[in-house]
């Protein structure tokens, strides 16, 4: 949990041209932003580019941050989310109607999802297995619609509360809850279907 006063002071120092304050902000938030970008975009390279873009945008608009309107982390997440939505609209990668068996990303060595799960039983190493499960879930997450995906990522990966998510997505809390429920259920159905194909 961020200390509001400390962050506000950090932002003020940044605005007044203190480069060290800006570096502190970058070091504090880069991991969080990178994770959101990675889970949403699906690719490490895209996530890196998007994280950099987020910080550039933040740097330019830092003076518009109003601490009375909400937490700095919410503001940062809102910027990230808006940029991700813009990126999604530009690339339109999620509008492709490919099946779950299609190639997901370069991180899975270009294997279809069902083949990755099939391989899951083979490796003896638990660590490798856990990593593969993680990659499978990551691929399935990429199949969700952007609306459901962003809600699930913010709730289950970023541990944000419903009020904060509602502020970021600019929708009522009820809608946030509904999207999270549908997103989780859809994710489970996708993974169950994949497992059934493997069995």
């Amino acid at each position, binding site marked *: 949990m961020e200390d509001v006063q400390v962050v506000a*002071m950090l932002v*003020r*120092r940044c*605005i*007044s041209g*203190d*480069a*060290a*304050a*800006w*570096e502190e902000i*970058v*070091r504090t938030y*880069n*991991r969080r932003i*990178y*994770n959101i970008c*990675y*889970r949403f975009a699906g690719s*490490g390279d895209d996530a*890196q580019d998007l*994280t*950099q873009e987020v*910080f*550039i945008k933040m*740097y330019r608009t830092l*003076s*518009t941050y109003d601490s009375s309107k909400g937490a700095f982390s919410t503001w940062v997440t809102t910027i990230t989310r808006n940029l991700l939505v813009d990126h999604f609209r530009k690339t339109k990668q999620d509008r492709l109607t490919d099946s779950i068996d299609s190639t997901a990303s370069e991180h899975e060595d270009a294997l279809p999802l069902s083949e990755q799960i099939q391989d899951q039983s083979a490796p003896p190493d638990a660590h490798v297995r*856990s990593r593969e*499960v*993680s990659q499978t*879930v*990551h691929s*399935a*997450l990429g199949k969700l619609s952007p609306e459901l995906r962003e809600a*699930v990522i913010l709730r*289950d*990966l970023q541990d944000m509360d*419903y009020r904060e998510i509602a502020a970021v997505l600019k929708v009522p809390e*009820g809608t946030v*809850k*509904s999207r*999270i*429920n549908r*997103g*989780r*259920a*859809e*994710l*489970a*159905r996708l*993974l*169950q279907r994949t497992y059934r194909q493997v069995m």
Partner: protein
Amino acid sequence: MPEPTSNGMQCNEFDALLADAIDGVLSGAQLDRFQAHARTCAACGPLLADAEAGRSWMKELSQIEPPVGLVESILASTTGIASDRLLSPVRPSQAQVSWLERSRAWLASTIDPFWATVRQPRFAMSFGMAFFTLSVALSVAGVKPTDLRQVSLRPSAIRRTYYSTHARVVRYYDNIRFVYELQARVRELKRDVSPVQPGSDKAPAKEKERKNDTTQEPEQKQERNYSQTENAVVLASAPLGPSVNDLPVVSVTTYRRLV
């Protein structure tokens, strides 16, 4: 759409409580009603199971470490300063910020949003254009910054300034070579193009009037509007219409050769 179950809970109410139920914040009678609905409703029961499964799948996802050099590349693309240089200043001294620095930071945070808007190229261009237009208008009107000291703000003086400025602008406009050449050309074109008007038989009528004039005064004195007389277009055509009868009859004999 599934029907409400015997416990009275609707599916939309179940949907609204689903997230809280998974978070474990439901309790008491509300939790009992929720669980009863999940057991009996054909749509909501599987939804609860899937949502719980989805949440546990999401727990499989761990935090990813950003690539090495990400922070440095971010700093290079924003401030353009290498990270090592930034780390060198002593941090503890910065924690104790003086009131002067604090007030400067507060001022900067207040003024910067406005200043950032003003600095945008479109605003700068608009201001530039407005300044250029104003300076041209003032120079055309003959206003000099040095004259502003002697400006009198009495109503009569303001009125006089207005009329003199207006006259100066009109004179300036009329004296533009292009303008008066264009006006002369348009006047010529009008004169050449204007057709014979049915009302052009006013001249004989005037002649009649002159005949009936009993004032015995010289003809020129009765013509008050000299400028109009000078500018009147002289038509070379013969009058038409009823005034044709006034023309002298000319008899023409045609000699035709019979072959």
